[in-house]
């Protein structure tokens, strides 16, 4: 059980790392948002599952899963709201063709 949970947490950490690197590397705000918000989601989920497994079946684990649920609910909402705000502010998404003309948020 412990080994499984360690493995899951490590995978989660890997996704978190990927997301962070994406956050740093991606060229514009929208793409970064993909990296940040989304890779994280899975990474966090995996970490939480790993910890819940490690903890065994108890109320604590249920609470940890609740945390996961809440993150699943709030994270896309937050992302959506920022994206919407960025769009409303008139930030055009970066695309490969017109690299120079982008406006940063």
């Amino acid at each position: 059980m412990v080994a499984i949970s360690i493995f899951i947490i490590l995978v989660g950490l890997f996704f978190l790392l990927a997301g962070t690197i994406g956050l740093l590397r991606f060229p514009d705000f929208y793409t970064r948002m993909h990296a940040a918000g989304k890779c994280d989601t899975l990474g966090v989920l995996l970490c939480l599952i790993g910890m819940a497994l490690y903890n065994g079946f108890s109320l604590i684990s249920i609470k940890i899963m609740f945390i996961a649920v809440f993150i699943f609910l709030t994270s896309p909402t937050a992302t959506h709201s920022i994206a919407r705000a960025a769009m409303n502010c008139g930030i055009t998404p970066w695309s490969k063709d017109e690299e120079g003309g982008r406006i940063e948020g």
Partner: protein
Amino acid sequence: MISRYESIIITTLCKLLIPVIQLYGLYVIMHGHSSPGGGFQGGVILGASFILLVISHGLDEVKKRMSEKLNTIFCSFGLLIYAGLGVLALIFGGNYLDYGHLPIPVTIAEARYLGILGIEIGVGITVMAVMISIFLDISSVGEQE
């Protein structure tokens, strides 16, 4: 910041989250004895839930649930619970805030436990009401003249 959030995603989700957050706030108040938390934290969470409601549903929705008058009453009422418990202890022969002298048929330690619960509730109510009122005041200046 007072009007309803135009995005349906946000309003819907907040609608679902707010009761949960509120219940969580109450949980934090009630279980301050055995786990971290207490009146202030719970009160802030409750207040935050209302702030979330303001952000997502606009001011009117909040006014429906928590009118200015009710808010003021809560502000004072919470503190009255607190100070009143102290006075009650005073009346029943203890020093101020000495919950051991409260007229509850349990041991002194348990009486203190209940006293702590009582004041946590009072603190929670006040903090919630004040947080809402500060936020509403700050964010509604000049918008409803």
